[in-house]
């Protein structure tokens, strides 16, 4: 099995304030999806990325707040899975909750570095 990284992207909606019920339902969707991958023994690791207080550094020490003003979609987090093929990884991605809010999942093969 090789590792694949799935990167979650969705539209930046700073004004969207979910209700506690919506939050809870969303958390459950994510937990169930990841639990399903883990139950297949294919989970490697995951992280969420904060949308608060992020910075972008550009050449000549130019620093700006977040990427949000300039891009339409932001990266919300990623998961690393192991699977036998890209097809299989795409099947795992199919249940990703980001798809239900209009976002997308980018699936990339991880190339191990021999350091």
């Amino acid at each position, binding site marked *: 099995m090789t590792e694949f990284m799935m990167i979650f992207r969705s539209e930046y909606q700073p004004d969207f304030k979910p209700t506690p019920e919506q939050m809870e339902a969303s958390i*459950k969707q994510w*937990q169930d999806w990841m*639990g*399903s991958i*883990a*139950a*297949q*023994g294919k*989970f490697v690791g995951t992280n969420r990325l904060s949308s608060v207080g992020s910075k972008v550094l550009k050449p000549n020490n130019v620093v700006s707040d977040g990427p949000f003003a300039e891009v339409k979609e932001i990266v919300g987090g990623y998961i690393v899975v192991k699977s036998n093929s890209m097809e299989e990884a795409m099947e795992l991605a199919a249940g990703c909750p980001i798809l239900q809010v209009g976002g997308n999942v980018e699936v990339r093969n991880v190339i191990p570095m021999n350091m």
Partner: protein
Amino acid sequence: MAEDKVIQQLFKTEYRKLIAVLCKSFGIIHIEHAEDIVNDTFLLASEKWTKEGLPVNPAAWLYTVAKNKTKDHLKHDKIFNDKIVADLKQHGDFVENFEIDLSIGNIKDSQLAMIFAICNPIIPPESQIGLALRILCGFGIDEIADAFLTNKETINKRLFRAKEKLRTAKIKIELPLQFEINERLENVLTTLYLLYNEGYYSTTQNTILRKELCLEAMRLTYFLIENETTNKANVNALMALMCFHASRFDARTNELGEPVLYDNQDKNLWDEDLILKGNTFLIKSAAGEEVSKYHIEASIAFWHSTKLEHTNKWEHILQLYNQLLLIDYSPISALNRTYALSKTAGKAIAIAEAIKLNLHENHFYHSLLGYLYTDFDVKLAIYHYELALSLAKSKNDKNIIENRLKALR
């Protein structure tokens, strides 16, 4: 006969203390000498007491005899003398005033150090459990053989090799340093968890022995809780887990010694006292940031120990399994997660998830599919139960599956 009973009882409580103190004094290299001295002590007790009756304080008698025997060995036994005395001298001790310290404090410290020496990943898990049962719990070789469904020779060989490993690796019998406690404690907990599971899920029919294994694992875990240096959150979590499971001991087998599955258990037989203790340890385990697999498993066991049918019970259990699988995958957790999913999302969704698990060699996998298909497709249900039957090894497992099949046909 009363003497026999007392000796048996003392063997269970004092053997491990004497061994621990002697091993700590001599070093692990001379573990066999320590065992010889303690065995000789008990042999002498058995001879003397049956003839002359019990001494006033039997335990103190044992301690005095063990001390004297140690001195005798040091003075008269050539091999013992050459090897151990040389080692002791290296450490600046002298035989003339060498005294075994059998104070309560040193017994405790020695036992704790011994736990860390034995629960060591350099020896295979089943040897760790065997050695723990022998050295830390004072079990007889025949009892250990019984627990592992094997014979005495196999156990003797296994223990011999394990001791050899500890000797060649020059494992020190001492308390870990403060900075390494957490890492070493992790190994200890793994062994105690396995020891407990050996009793709880063992295939041996001997229910008394199984219960004893679990109680020993609990005793050792509690021993860690009693010691300030090892009273950590994950130790309390493991203790909670053990209490919750143990609360169902009397409910999980019937008068014939056959297993009673969770759903069919008489909840009145659950041990309320142990459930309460489990709750207490679970609360203590919440101190600190750490969430170990023992925390999650204890929380799952907590939900299984509630008698009230809380509406969200299975949702909580499902999320806990989701969490557990992220940090520690095991086939049985994957199957339990899918069962919990069938309770929250229905059997149809659970079937789709079960198929992805890919555990075709596992009889529990086929039993789960048999259960899930029962309402949809009896033929498929029977097909899976039959596969489960062909894969199951223990008599108890086969019985359960056969009963399911009978109900379907």
